[in-house]
């Protein structure tokens, strides 16, 4: 279990590095696919089988296919490195230090509190992971689910509108 987590953590780090560092967008997209598949396996380690399936279908399937399709359509070349103005590095240093302090506080924080609930992995697996997740989705989280469905509708209409409109 720990060894599996360690391998996956290294995998996630390397693929995330690929997303940030590769010059060609198609390599970035492929790294992101690898990153999302690794994350799906991490969800399995966390006993979230429903999230594993949703991650693979929605992210690695739909979203990344859209990305790769758009990259193939637009065919953007590798980025050029432009020369930068001098003052940007001052802001970069200041905010970099702030962000590093925040990250350090996160990494060495051992005082998170929380009241454990009743749904232990054994209790969830006795009912079934999808069943318990579905019950939570459609009972205590009904309003967020409905709001999200309206958001999806708005996004679909907005995308169609944007695609129809011709800009000069």
């Amino acid at each position, binding site marked *: *279990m*720990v060894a599996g*987590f360690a391998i996956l*953590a290294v995998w*996630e*780090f390397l693929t*995330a*590095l690929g*997303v*940030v560092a590769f010059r060609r*967008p198609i390599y*970035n997209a492929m790294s*992101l696919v690898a990153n*999302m598949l690794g994350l799906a396996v*991490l969800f399995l*380690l*966390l*006993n*979230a089988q429903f*999230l594993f399936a*949703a*991650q693979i279908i*929605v*992210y690695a399937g*739909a979203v990344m296919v*859209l*990305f790769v399709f*758009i990259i193939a359509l*637009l065919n953007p070349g590798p*980025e050029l490195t*432009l020369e930068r103005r001098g003052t940007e590095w001052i802001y970069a240093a200041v905010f970099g230090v702030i*962000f590093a302090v925040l*990250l350090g506080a*996160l*990494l060495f924080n*051992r005082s*998170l509190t929380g*009241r*454990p*609930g*009743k*749904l232990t*992995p054994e*209790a969830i697996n006795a009912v079934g992971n999808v069943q318990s*997740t579905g019950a*939570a*989705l459609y009972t205590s*989280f009904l309003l967020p689910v409905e709001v*999200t469905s309206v*958001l*999806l509708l*708005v*996004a*679909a209409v*907005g*995308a169609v509108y*944007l*695609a129809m*409109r011709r*800009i000069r």
Partner: protein
Amino acid sequence: MPVPAYSFLMLSGVLFTMGAIGFLLRRNPLVVFMCIELMLNAVNLAFAAMSRYLNSLDGVVFAFLVITVAAAEVVVGIAIIVQVYRAGRQMDVDELDLMKE
């Protein structure tokens, strides 16, 4: 031996930071979007980890909602990027300053 919860949170923090770095450094709007996805994924990992270690399903449900919102965001964002490209602009977020005018 189970994996401690903090290791998941650390990995989540590291992934989020890498996404933020990429968001700030990269210029191609598509890659900027991918870095946003990276950050959302990191948050999902934290949600799922806390859900597992606090014996609750709330985090899983929220991670699912985050996945949905991310899909909606990508649809609209990519539609805008394609429109910008069709208008003949450069694929460079530093050059896109139409909102200033």
